[in-house]
């Protein structure tokens, strides 16, 4: 599974994208995995996951064809 990284997530992972080998069936699993692998994620105000360019709930199932992005706290405007 390949995920897009933005903002502070690029700094935390030190990359623009991340390829994950682990089996992560849902958005909730991906969030949990991120916090384990990158403890700095736990210090963020929040972290959201977008699936196919829309915010996804923890229950959303992930498939290898999805466009998955990690969305750290927003600061546009």
């Amino acid at each position, binding site marked *: 599974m390949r995920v897009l990284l933005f*903002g502070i997530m690029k*700094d935390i992972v030190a990359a623009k994208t991340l390829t994950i080998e682990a089996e992560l069936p849902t958005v909730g699993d991906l969030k949990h995995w991120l916090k384990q692998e990158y403890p700095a994620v736990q210090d963020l105000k929040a972290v959201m996951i977008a699936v196919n360019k829309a915010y996804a709930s923890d229950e959303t199932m992930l498939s290898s064809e999805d466009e998955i992005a990690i969305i750290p706290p927003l*600061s*546009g405007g």
Partner: protein
Amino acid sequence: MEQLIRISDNIDAAEAVAFVQSEESGGVVTFIGSVRNQTKQKKVLKLVFECYEPMAILEMEKIAAQMYEKWQVKRVAMLHVTGEKLPGEVVVAIAVAAPHRGAAFEACQYAIDTLKETVPIWKQEFFEDGAVWVAAHP
């Protein structure tokens, strides 16, 4: 509803206003945000904006659709920058034309409030002693 939604290196607030102005609607409300030269008494050198552009455009389109639903807005322009910006430069411009000016004020404020909450854009603030991603930490 007519809408102009764009993310680009440079934006012009006058373009947003001109897009929504028409002979049919008498009132236009605009919000223009620009780079402040300080944050909590600390001098800001520049901001760098990054965005997840295809999703950001979709989220901005959702905001425009809600403005149409809730306030019968006629024309909306929503422009946001990406890349490096210096103090004083414009970073966001939202212009709204609606049949009633109260609706235009409410819809414009809703648009900027919601943009800040839902549109995937991030800014990094550069100070003399380093840089931070704004609002990343509690």
